[in-house]
């Protein structure tokens, strides 16, 4: 008869084997494509090595009197809007996730589905609908007019793009935070209260640190699509262009190498940002 240890070791070995399909898949379709981006970013249309694409991204100016290289400026704008949207999503989504996590199981189920319903409907037409709401002669101003207020000019401004981003990605913030909070042990909160923490203290010292993993993945899931979007800015941003628009325009102008160069830089930037965020979070949760 086999000893207990070998049986469970065998079990572990068999289960490690389950990794094989995913490993192959991940190498073929996750790792290798990244090399294609890098390859195109550092070659010209004749497939010769060049740094020109990269140099262009960092030095191209639309006119001499601009203080900043053009793409650096667009990168800055995209990150600015994405960060603002992410913060607003966090501000709006965090209490909402808390609210769901503390409802009865049945209400939890309903609220989660309700939040996911918009995601099941096409995001292109939802964005289109925002255009109709936010236009100068749109529904928002119509409503304000009835109240004797307004009109306000939103469409074509950065505010409109932020509204679009917050709307499209808010569920991506709520869901991960909720799933962490739902697992939180309520006895911890009670204990903290018993030990004399006030409401804010409980939030700051107990709930917030425990929910950090959810917050991090929420930030991840909102920040990244916001930085790279091109449809939202096209429809709601008036004449404004974001970095996603620039990549798409290069693709449409048959400049795959230029598109890859911008994409490559964006990829590296995001990797750095997310690594920093993760690092700080783990440090804090350890402390």
């Amino acid at each position, binding site marked *: 008869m086999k000893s207990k240890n070998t049986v469970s070791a065998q079990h572990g070995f068999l289960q490690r084997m389950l990794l094989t399909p995913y490993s192959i898949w991940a190498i073929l379709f996750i790792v290798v494509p990244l090399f294609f981006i890098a390859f195109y970013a550092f070659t010209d249309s004749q497939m010769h090595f060049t740094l020109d694409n990269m140099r262009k991204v960092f030095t191209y100016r*639309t*006119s001499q009197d601009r203080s900043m290289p*053009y793409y650096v400026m667009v990168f800055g704008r995209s990150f600015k809007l994405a960060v603002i949207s992410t913060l607003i999503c966090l501000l709006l989504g965090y209490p909402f996730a808390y609210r769901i996590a503390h409802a009865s199981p049945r209400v*939890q*189920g*309903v609220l*989660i*589905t309700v939040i996911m319903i918009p995601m099941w409907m096409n995001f292109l037409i939802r964005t289109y609908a925002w*255009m*109709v709401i936010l*236009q*100068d*002669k*749109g529904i928002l101003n119509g409503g304000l007019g009835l109240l004797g207020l307004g009109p306000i000019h939103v*469409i*074509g401004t950065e505010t409109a793009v932020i509204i679009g981003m917050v709307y499209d990605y808010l569920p991506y913030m709520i869901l991960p935070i909720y799933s962490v909070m739902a697992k939180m042990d309520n006895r911890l909160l009670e204990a903290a209260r018993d030990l004399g923490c006030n409401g804010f203290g409980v939030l700051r010292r107990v709930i917030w640190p425990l929910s950090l993993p959810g917050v991090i993945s929420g930030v991840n899931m909102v920040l990244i699509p916001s930085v790279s979007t091109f449809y939202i800015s096209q*429809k709601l941003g*008036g*004449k404004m*262009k974001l970095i996603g628009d620039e990549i798409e*325009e290069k*693709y*449409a*102008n*048959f*400049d795959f190498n230029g598109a890859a160069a911008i994409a490559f830089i964006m990829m590296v930037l995001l990797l750095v940002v997310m690594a920093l965020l993760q690092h700080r979070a783990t440090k804090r949760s350890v402390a």
Partner: protein
Amino acid sequence: MKKLLSVLLCAAMLLSVGWMLSACGDNTVTLNVYNWGEYISDGSEGSLDTVKAFEAWYQETYNQKVKVNYTTFASNEDMYNKLSSGAVSYDVVIPSDYMIAKMIEENMLLPLNFDNIPNYANIDENFRGLNYDPDNKYTVPYTYGVVGIIYNANVVDEADAQGWDLLWNEKYSGQILQFNNPRDAFGTAQYKLDLNVNSTDKADWDLAYEELKKQEPLVQKYVMDEIYNMMEIGEAAIAVYYAGDYFTMVDAQAEDVDLRFYYPDRTNYFVDAMCIPSCCKNQKLAEIFINYMLSEEPAIANAEYIYYASPNSVVYNSPDYQEEMGEEAMDILYMDVANFKTLYNQYGFLNQSNEMLEYISELWHKVRS
């Protein structure tokens, strides 16, 4: 909630498996068609569903099942990117003139065998041998159109509504919409300045660029499909677009909006034509499809749906069609049809060299930044 979703997933799965099975069948040939979005009669308002009708007609005539895979693209450049990647195989594509010229130059199109397209006789002499395909070897025109100016008469003074200047009129700053594609946008400036739209002299393009840059502060937005919403509700007052689409907007305009239309003196004539790309798998079938699209019923249905002018004489000579469209639409859509060839060859877009294309997209990028 989870139960609900699992129920949904199962239902979707069953449905899709069912659909898959129903789509299969032996002895079926497939035809891959690539066209603009919303650019074929699709069976709305009791009209003909052209693709379905072709499938039925083909089965009846040739006693063989055909499955048309009909997919759509957003721009000529999109279509070109997919085709030139070599990773797709389409049998029929319907791009615009300048893109056709580019594709012919790059050997991306097959010469047609007109023996299989007897209905080509329906195409008037005026629409044959146009600049983009001078020897009439590769293309069969599908629609044509003219670019014009649409304005809201409740905002714009009648006196100002003349020529290209309206698009540059500072009085209407912030109310003007310009094309969001380089070729059409540069065209407006070039016609305004009476430049050759196919000039290979960079200095000419620089002039047009200056003009567009001058216009930029006045422009509310660079648009394609957003134009419909914005003009219908009065969000903008002046726009430049394709003639037939004006009628779509008028039909849906708000009560306080009064849209009007006119052609400036020089303007763009464009043709979208059916062609067979070199990746085609079944040329004969593709030609049969093209021929079918030229026959009376589908051609009229398409022309009524798309609302652009048709180069097909069976269409524009049909009393039913003329009645359906109405006198105003016929006048605007088919303006100067007798002189089409001359006008087109003077004002239509041709292909540019890759170097020029790069230069143009650089200029366009500068306009918008």
